């Protein structure tokens, strides 16, 4: 990925006490193959990947063609699970819609928010570290069960939000009880954890040479032009990386809907992973849940491929 190289250079500068590396020397090191040694060092990874990733993935593909329920035999039922998903399961469609809404709104909003705050922080000279620390704090605790519980009370009928509204004479609302607003409380929780994207953007902004801005302002470019012609294009590799990771993370959300709304009201917050969890561990329909998991894997793969494929058009790599 494009953002690696400058980082490596940054770290090299940090190792000041060590002699600098020369490129031609680097190539000569380890000239001979050490197959035994290499495989010995990475063997934990290979064993773990085969046992805990490759085998489970293949096995779950097999399960998705069966009616396995954890105690009985796994009977081969062909494509029945997939057929059920697409033809006779309204909950599957609902879960898919909810998840697309959640990730589709949450990911772009979080990234825009993180970028705006990173831009603002990049300008600040005094106490920048302090702002950064406190603005990052929600991100560090945001995924925990504790925050989910707090969120439930914050948006509850007697919660802080309604209390604030009432004290200002505004109408209150049953945020978690209304199917139209419940999902948005989860989206807001997702956006609230903008901190790590903000840090990645800040690092990206710091890598943009100041001379670019100086040169362009000599040519008479104003701030907005500079943002769209310099800042944004040079940040696109960082945006690409964020977009891919956050989209996957968004599709995988579980804890917020499990704890804050339990999928309700009227399944309006039934995130995909929650629906999969229910099928597997409440209805013990492991076959059907495996089909759901495989379909999600496909969605992630397609989305990632689409983002990377489209990246030729909008990601700018600085060739220096």
């Amino acid at each position: 990925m494009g953002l690696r190289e400058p980082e490596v250079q940054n770290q090299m500068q940090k190792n000041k006490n060590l002699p600098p590396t020369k490129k031609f020397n680097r190539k000569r090191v380890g000239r001979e193959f050490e197959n035994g040694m290499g495989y010995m060092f990475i063997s934990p990874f290979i064993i773990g990947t085969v046992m805990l990733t490759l085998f489970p993935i293949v096995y779950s593909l097999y399960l998705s063609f069966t009616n396995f329920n954890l105690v009985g035999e796994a009977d081969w039922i062909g494509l029945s699970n997939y057929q059920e998903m697409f033809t006779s399961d309204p909950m599957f469609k609902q879960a898919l819609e909810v998840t697309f809404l959640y990730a589709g709104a949450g990911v772009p909003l979080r990234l825009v928010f993180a970028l705006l705050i990173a831009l603002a922080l990049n300008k600040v000279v005094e106490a920048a570290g302090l702002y950064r620390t406190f603005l990052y704090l929600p991100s560090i605790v945001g995924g925990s069960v504790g925050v989910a519980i707090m969120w439930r009370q914050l948006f509850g009928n007697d919660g802080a939000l309604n209390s604030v509204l009432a004290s200002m004479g505004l109408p209150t609302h049953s945020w978690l009880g209304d199917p139209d607003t419940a999902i948005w409380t989860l989206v807001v929780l997702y956006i609230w954890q903008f901190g790590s994207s903000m840090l990645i953007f800040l690092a990206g902004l710091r890598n943009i040479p100041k001379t670019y801005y100086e040169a362009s302002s000599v040519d008479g470019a104003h701030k907005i032009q500079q943002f769209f012609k310099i800042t944004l294009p040079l940040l696109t590799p960082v945006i690409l990386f964020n977009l891919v990771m956050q989209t996957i993370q968004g599709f995988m959300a579980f804890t917020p809907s499990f704890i804050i709304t339990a999928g309700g009201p009227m399944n309006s917050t039934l995130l995909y992973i929650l629906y999969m969890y229910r099928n597997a561990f409440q209805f013990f329909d492991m076959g059907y849940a495996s089909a759901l998991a495989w379909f999600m894997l496909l969605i992630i793969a397609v989305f990632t491929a689409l983002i990377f494929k489209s990246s030729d058009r909008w990601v700018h790599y600085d060739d220096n």
Partner: protein
Amino acid sequence: MITRKKRVRNKVIQHVSLIALTAVMLYPLIWMLGSSFKESSQVFVDAHRIFPETWNFSNYSDGWKGFAGITFGTFYKNTFIIVTISTIGAILSSALIAYGFARIKFRFKKFWFVVMMLTMMLPFEIIMIPQYVMFNWFGWIDTYLPLILPTFFGVPFFIFLIMQFIRTIPTELDQAARIDGCNTITIFTRIIAPLVVPAMMTAAIFSFYWRWDDFMAPLLYLQSPDKYPVSLALKMFSDPEAVTNWGAMFAMTTLSLLPIMIIFFIFQRYIVEGISTSGLKG
């Protein structure tokens, strides 16, 4: 020309808006802290107020009693066991694997590296069902093995992070050590391992707080309440149908975030570096 006065005014506007933004962002956390000191009956009266009328510290001692006769002392002890062992496993194995990828030449290295990058992007949720079925065969349900053992095979994010760090170490060091009689193994133990301690620290901190927050795996694998970590215990403790003592619930919720925050404030530098250099998710 921007006058001095205008510049000062801009600065003031900048800081006032940033302070306001930070305050709004932190309000939920501060509100939770305040509510943990409120009388249970007062928690939802004028709920938005941060400071309680009377400071009530008994919420903490009441909440600590836990449920089903198990105190939060047990839950914290369980979490510490899981977090400590899995973090040690993750760091040691990831450092070994990172060294293998960064410094040793072997056949099909590229292939395995691609596999690693792919597993880095593969979420746990996708393979949790077959993994559960597998661990169920092994008879590992209601033990810590499914939570701890997988980390001993390396965590792709940490492998990547440590690899990036090893690449910044000049290879002349390896060559010099080889001339002095070191072999591939002792170059790792004597030269590389001591130098990558900062990267291992970063990985350890992330491991600590991912494991601390982990909810899904304990939810799947642990059944006896006396084995619950804090995350799962808190969920049980706060079930809307069961809660009567709201103050105690807020107290235990606040307490559960404390260790992560302490670690964050002490080791901030490592966390910021980890995120900025390799995009570890926060």
